[in-house]
């Protein structure tokens, strides 16, 4: 049988970067194929080439036995290839049906009007055929991430896709939603569809895929049978060396309370409560983790704590000072460091160089400012220290933030925030998009601060991260704390259930440690 996709010697070169280097890839029809690799290994670039977003510098693309050249995504779509990006390509203000049919709307009246009824019916039919539950009339902005993803899948199916590419589809899902997604994979392959998905999670690749191709530094370093391989083998292929998969934490010896949140209620822009009556404390010398599926109020909670959003009700105390009504600047002055979730929007000013970014948040600090005059020399020295300590690439303080890769921006932000000599660090997804080496380094720094008696509040959608370095773990679901658990005691399944809103069974206790 001819393979669904066959890539032959694909090379993609960007100015100064060789993203893909002579990559071969064969995907059989009706199978699930995982593309595994670290960030920056060239997985997404390869798939963008297959999808016609990039033209390859050299190499051949063969679809279903026919050689193709794609100049634009439409060419790939015409060849039966569909792609679901990490950032969903959905128009928030439109409904599911409108998004699914975008660009290929069914028409009536000689093409003068969109046939809305037809569009809705088409989506309903598709849902039934592939067993996907989505209401066609709901606006995207009102849907959970999982359903949005299903909408994306519907979009590609609607266009008659045979080969579905998914870029890190599980990154934002709960364990339960991941399960559901994997069963959707099965339904799709049963009907003859072929699936390629990008991931950097070993377990997932092994669980969901029939075959796994590992990319490293833009090269294909091996294709293995998912049944036959081991985690260790894959990890070694990915990183090129043996990897320690566990983070070691030192002894847990918490001190006084540094952050106390009491009955906090926060509303979103529409005036709806997205955080309801949340209470918890973070002590000096401890890492308090918050787990939960994205969009369950974590970001609003963090914004309220860090002073970026005014809470509706409740009390926040930092040390022994109430800071509920303090603004952002006063909180910074009180020793609250914050690694924000969205580095492009908040963490760095993209058009500033690194020196100017080094000052962000310290523009009133006496260390850098005399009587309103900024001491750029001292700021530059400070920036150079961060760059060196956190191995920010390129090590050029005059480079603009936008010239840095996401991982390096993140390292810079972490370096700047942790250098504040804080009493509390509020870290949101601190290692998102950062390579394994730097992730280790950032974790080490957070643990060092913990050892030095700083309180750390950690939010992450990476379960292994929050479980790995937290001392206590609060689980959020729909704006409430479902439970606070011992991360070492709880199993992944139990955690998944909590994240899905199941009330905790009383038995989850210290006895059940693995």
């Amino acid at each position, binding site marked *: 049988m001819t393979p669904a996709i066959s890539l032959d010697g694909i090379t993609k070169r960007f100015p100064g970067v060789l993203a893909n280097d002579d990559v071969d890839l064969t995907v059989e029809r009706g199978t699930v194929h995982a593309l595994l690799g670290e960030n920056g290994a060239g997985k997404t670039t390869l798939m963008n080439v297959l999808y016609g977003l990039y033209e390859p510098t050299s190499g051949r693309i063969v679809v279903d036995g026919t050689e193709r050249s794609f100049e634009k995504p439409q060419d790939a779509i015409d060849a039966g290839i569909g792609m679901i990006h990490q950032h969903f390509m959905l128009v928030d203000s439109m409904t599911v049906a409108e998004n699914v049919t975008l660009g290929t709307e069914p028409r009536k009246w000689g093409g003068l009007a969109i046939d809305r009824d037809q569009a809705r019916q088409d989506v309903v039919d598709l849902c039934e055929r592939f067993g996907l539950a989505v209401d066609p009339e709901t606006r995207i902005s009102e849907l959970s991430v999982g359903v949005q993803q299903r909408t994306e899948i519907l979009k590609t199916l609607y266009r008659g896709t045979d080969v579905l590419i998914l870029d890190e589809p599980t990154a934002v899902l709960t364990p339960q939603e991941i399960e559901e997604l994997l069963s959707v994979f099965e339904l799709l392959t049963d009907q003859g569809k072929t699936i390629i998905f990008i991931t950097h999670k070993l377990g997932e690749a092994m669980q969901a895929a029939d075959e796994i191709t590992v990319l490293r530094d833009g090269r294909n370093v091996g294709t293995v049978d998912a049944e036959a391989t081991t985690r260790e083998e894959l990890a070694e292929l990915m990183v090129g060396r043996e990897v320690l998969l566990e983070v070691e934490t030192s002894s847990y010896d918490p001190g006084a309370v540094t952050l106390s949140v009491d009955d906090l209620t926060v509303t979103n822009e529409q005036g709806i409560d997205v955080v309801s009556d949340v209470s918890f404390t973070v002590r000096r010398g401890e890492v308090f983790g918050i787990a939960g599926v994205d969009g369950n109020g974590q970001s609003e909670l963090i914004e309220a704590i860090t002073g*970026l959003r005014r809470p509706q009700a409740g009390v926040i105390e930092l040390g022994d000072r109430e800071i509920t009504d303090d*603004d*952002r*600047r006063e*909180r*910074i002055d009180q020793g609250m460091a*914050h690694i*924000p979730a*969205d580095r492009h*929007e*908040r*963490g*760095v*000013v*993209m*058009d*500033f160089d690194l020196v*100017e970014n080094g*000052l*962000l*948040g310290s*523009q*009133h600090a006496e260390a850098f*400012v005399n009587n*309103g*005059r*900024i001491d*750029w020399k001292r700021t530059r020295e400070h920036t150079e220290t961060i760059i060196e300590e956190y191995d920010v690439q390129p090590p050029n303080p005059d480079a603009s933030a936008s010239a840095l890769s996401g991982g390096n921006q993140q390292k810079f932000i972490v370096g700047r925030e942790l250098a504040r000599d804080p009493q509390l660090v509020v870290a949101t997804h601190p290692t998102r998009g950062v390579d394994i080496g730097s992730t280790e380094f950032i974790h080490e720094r957070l643990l060092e601060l913990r050892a030095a008696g700083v309180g750390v509040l950690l939010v992450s959608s990476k379960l292994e991260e929050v479980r790995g370095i937290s001392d206590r773990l609060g689980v959020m679901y729909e704006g409430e704390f479902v439970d606070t658990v011992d991360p070492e005691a709880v199993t992944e399944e139990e955690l998944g259930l909590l994240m899905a809103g199941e009330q905790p069974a009383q038995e989850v206790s210290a006895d059940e440690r693995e």
Partner: protein
Amino acid sequence: MSESDMLARVKERLRAVLRRSAQTSAVERLLISTAALGLAVLVGTVLILVSGRMTTCTTAAATYFGVGFCYDPVTVFDRLFLGALGDPMNPLFRPLHGEFAPPFRKGWSPFNAAMAVTLRETTVLVFTGLSVALAFRAGVFNIGTQGQLVAGALASALGLLVLAPIVPGGAVGAVLLVPAGLCIGAVAGGLYGAIPGVLKAYADANEVITTIMLNFVAAQFALYLVSNHFQRPGSQVVETVPLPDVGTIPSVVFDPRTNFSLLALAIAIGFGGVIYYLLQYTTMGYELRTSGLQPAGAEFGGVKTKRTIIASLTLSGALGGLGGAMYVMMILGNFQTGVPSYGFDGITVAILAGNNPLGVLFAAPLFGIIKSGSIVIDTATSMPPQLVDVLRGLIVLFVAMPEFFRLIGRRAIADEPSVPNGGDEDA
């Protein structure tokens, strides 16, 4: 070393310079602005020739390729740029023809009347340009500099008329009144700018709309106030009584009747430096710039965004108000309704300057020349002076498309230029 070797080396050197300059944004900015000016002149030339065939005249102003044209582009641009400087060039100075007479025309003084007009327009444009640039840097689209200028102009005129009887005459009076007038203008402009600031910060009202509306309101309100309460008796136009001499900015070097004061220009240039310093070296400026580039990032960095919006519009308004005070205290000597559109011109100045306060100091004179030169064109050629407005628009248009020039620049650097032949290069 052979000639072709040398040529290749010079070209390589040149290309390296170009390559390096393509990286430094200030130089690039300058190159692009110059190229935009050049291209605008080129398009303008075509326009002049075409319109010279569209109209009818008895004698041709110029003949090119055996075709007569009613307007001569050479004369037009000569009048536009040199006329605005009071014709400095000596007609006998023709270096291209190997004649090196003194470059400046005999009897030409840099302190001539045309130059005074150019510089006094420049002075006001520096203020309005700074006003717009500052707001833009803070991410606030202040279209209301015009209204703020009117508010400042009116307030300083009325304020000085109230104060004049109180202070003594002579130098002492001037020392007291001139700064007072400027301050009143700045405060009034600032307060008027604060209105859209407050509306934006606390009512989320789009500042583009509110400032456009407030421009109309300012003009009408000034008309009401002056015509109903401060009308100069016996005058046929809506204006206040003239300011006493001690309330006007004393002219330096230039003839007092030219209504231009070097002192005012010096103050304007000083403000350019001050605003530059403010933006680059102070916490306030840093916060303004941060909010302008990335509001969410500014919020993250502890910038009080609402306060920054209000502060930037207030400051921007104050600069506009100062421009108005200058207009009243230097150019008019009283307040009259029908204030020229300095505020809108400030937008073009700021755009050409890339919103850089020091850039404003270079862009303002260009538009000063254009404004002053358009008068010379009207009186010295038969060309309708509105052409100058077209040129101004074209300059702005071309400045808006740096990518176009980069493309050309890149091509010039990358491609081996098709060398025509060596012989062309000698003098």
